[in-house]
């Protein structure tokens, strides 16, 4: 029965993807004169060369961080959308350390990442503090703080870190000592992937195997019960948001150190929202975060390759992404058939059981 249900889940997911692909194909038919080629680029492009597959892994790295960060924050039932701002500020703070030319390797990236993490922690901690102290909606405050983070970050770059010899608003070059080493030759996959993997594993153990994770989950599921059980829910809420912010901030730092020569974001990079997608797909379970992140990254890279190498408009990929995400997350999709299966099984076991 259990196995059959799992099989059914697999079938359901596959079918959802197929339907999403059909919708994608229809959209592509409108946009392209060579829909077959476009679709195959979309589906298989990311696997047709090491570099392209590398692109998928590269993109996964920030998604792993923000996905984990969001799932940690949501686990405490806090609708904190600050991962976006934390990621951005994380990048800024890391830059402030990384443009320093007088540090030694290893220590340099560690310090930069810590700086990024701290910035993120403070940033996501503030809405939590306002919530706990005055019951101010964390949704509203974090949403607004994201914009504040953007403009604050731009100010810091513009007035303190901008390289005036560069032809754009970018920071000074990051010191070579601060960069994260590349892991796979021929791609830009960097050491951040290993940090991300370790963080996710640690995140899983933290959430499901430590007292703190337990407290966070319990507080998120039923805070009255958690309080009754002797848990100080206020500090648990703050802890979860600070930790989530730290992870998002480190993610921003690692993205900058691994992928950039200089800090050059001029708007919020959007990984916070992506993190929400990943976290919801993974149902806030760190163990499933890599699956969600891989899915989203693959989708994005495939779509990019399609837009780049075929005649499909790059905007079409947003439509396809949206449809795919929605269908795959649709819990009641085929629920009717699932119930029939359950019913048949129950009857069978009832009759054989007697």
């Amino acid at each position, binding site marked *: *029965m259990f196995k059959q249900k799992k099989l059914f889940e697999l079938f359901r997911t596959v079918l959802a993807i197929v339907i999403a692909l059909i919708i994608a194909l229809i959209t592509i038919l409108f946009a392209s004169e060579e829909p077959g080629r476009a679709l195959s680029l979309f589906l298989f492009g990311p696997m047709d060369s090491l570099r392209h597959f590398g692109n998928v892994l590269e993109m996964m790295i920030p998604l792993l961080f923000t996905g984990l960060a969001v799932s940690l924050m949501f686990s405490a039932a806090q609708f904190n959308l600050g991962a976006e701002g934390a990621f951005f500020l994380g990048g800024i703070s890391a830059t402030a350390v990384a443009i320093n030319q007088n540090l030694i390797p290893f220590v340099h990236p560690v310090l930069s990442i810590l700086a990024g993490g701290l910035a993120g922690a403070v940033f996501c901690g503030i809405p939590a503090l306002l919530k706990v102290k005055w019951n101010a909606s964390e949704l509203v405050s974090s949403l607004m703080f994201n914009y504040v983070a953007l403009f604050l970050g731009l100010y810091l770059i513009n007035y303190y870190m901008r390289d005036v010899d560069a032809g754009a608003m970018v920071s000074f070059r990051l010191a070579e000592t601060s960069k994260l080493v590349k892991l796979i030759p021929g791609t830009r996959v960097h050491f951040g992937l290993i940090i991300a993997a370790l963080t996710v594993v640690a995140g899983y*153990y933290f959430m499901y*195997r*430590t*007292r703190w994770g*337990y*407290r966070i*989950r*319990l507080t998120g*599921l*039923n805070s*009255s*019960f*958690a*309080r*009754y*059980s*002797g*848990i*100080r829910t206020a500090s648990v809420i703050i802890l979860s948001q600070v930790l989530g912010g730290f992870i998002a901030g480190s993610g921003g730092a690692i993205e900058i150190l691994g992928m950039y020569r200089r800090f050059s974001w001029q708007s919020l990079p959007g990984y916070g929202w992506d993190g929400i997608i990943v976290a919801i797909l993974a149902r806030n379970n760190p163990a499933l975060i890599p699956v969600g992140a891989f899915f989203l990254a693959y989708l994005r890279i495939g779509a990019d390759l399609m837009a780049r190498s075929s005649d499909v408009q790059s905007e079409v990929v947003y439509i396809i992404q949206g449809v795919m995400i929605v269908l795959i997350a649709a819990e009641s999709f085929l*629920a009717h058939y*699932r*119930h029939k299966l*359950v*019913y048949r*099984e*129950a*009857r069978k076991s*009832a009759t054989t059981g007697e």
Partner: protein
Amino acid sequence: MNNITKVYPNGIVANEGVDFSLRKGEIHALVGENGAGKSTLMKILFGLEHPEEGEILLKGNPINIGSPNVAIEHGIGMVHQHFMLVPSLTVAENMVLGSEPRKGLYVNIKKASTETLELSRKYNLAVDPSARIRDLPVGIKQKVEILKALYRGAEILILDEPTAVLTPQETKELFEELHLLKEQGSTIIFISHKLHEIKELCDRLTIMRNGRSQGVFNVADVTEKDISRLMVGRDVILEVEKGPASPAAVSLKVEDLTVVNDFGKKAVNNISFSVRKGEILGVAGVEGNGQSELVEILTGLQRINFGSVEIEGVNIAGKSIKDIRNLGTCHIPEDRMTYGVAETLDIEQNLLADKHDSSRFTGRILTKPKIIRENSLKLIEEYKIKCGSPLEEVKMLSGGNIQKVVVAREFSVEPKLIIADQPTRGIDVGATEFIRKRLVELRDEGSAVLLVSADLNEVLELSDSLIVMYNGEITAYIEDVKSLGEEELGLFMLGINKQSDSEIGRALHV
């Protein structure tokens, strides 16, 4: 209802080939253990759930009840086990919700109010149409629920455990009203775990067990013992056997305690008492006379305003809930779904809530899954929690089994002081028997027990001594409960009689 079979999406077969029939104008009881499938069957009749098999006949005609709307059209009304009211709306608004009288584009609130009043007069169920639901006590809410069904023209009225939250007085009143309804031609289905109520009120009864019907009986033909045997499949001891108490040192001492609630009212007014190891002190009283506030103070859920509370010799002022628990206190909360469990968490993790960080279950950093599993399996077996595995979500359990999860967790700390607030509310006779027995066992092992219950039988049966609360004050301290009659207790509970200060002062055991 013929041959009804219902399988929930999680694969649980809640009803299996159930036949159920009603005669016009009768009060028909539906009884069974927790999770036997009573609520499910009624939800099917009311269109909230849809059976996989079976048919429903009304006056001989097959009908298809696709939604509550259809049920209402057919004159079926339901009062649910848990209140189905919107707290921020008024009584009148709740009454008419879904079939509002209109004036132009607007809801005709005036008409709603007058109709509510008329109805409440007609059936002798007094309510104030303009009061907000959130401000009402449970007894009134229950009346609103019944009126709601009647407003929609219910001829068949389903009452799913309406008395679980009522005081004896309120129950009595409700029964009078139900009789009145019956006389006026209504048919009533009555679900309860309190067998004496069924004996008192009902004409016939259907017994369910494990999703199947065990048959229909005339209430007059069966005894309470028969019913419980048919429900549980064995004999149930309806009275707890318990030896005399041997009280030892004081465990809990409350002195001059006053609690001011959010409305500035003194919910608890200058009370003093103590509980000794090896005794069960009952707190009797009509609900809403300060018992909940008292328990909140004792367990640290609320801060102490005035007075002092000592547990095991430690003053708990300024202590956290955790500190209080560490003194050896455990707490069975009144509202198990809010304070007792996290519904979507599995049983095992729920059993761990208060001791997740004890060194037994958690090392320096990581938890110890093996020991945790051993613990949960042991408790599930010991407390006979009916479930598929420790990893099942708590919300999949029936109310009684959820209560067992709470009790198992709370009792598994070798408690020095047990604060049991309505420990058997709404659970079946089997589970009730079990929990009561455990309480007595723990007393005999030397725990101090403070038992708060609105169920007079329970208080009288279980307690060694007793305080009665009325209007936030203690009106009586009864040292030996056996000497007390129900009548006498009632007078204390209603505040008509009050002992002298010195008599009450004995509660402190100084």
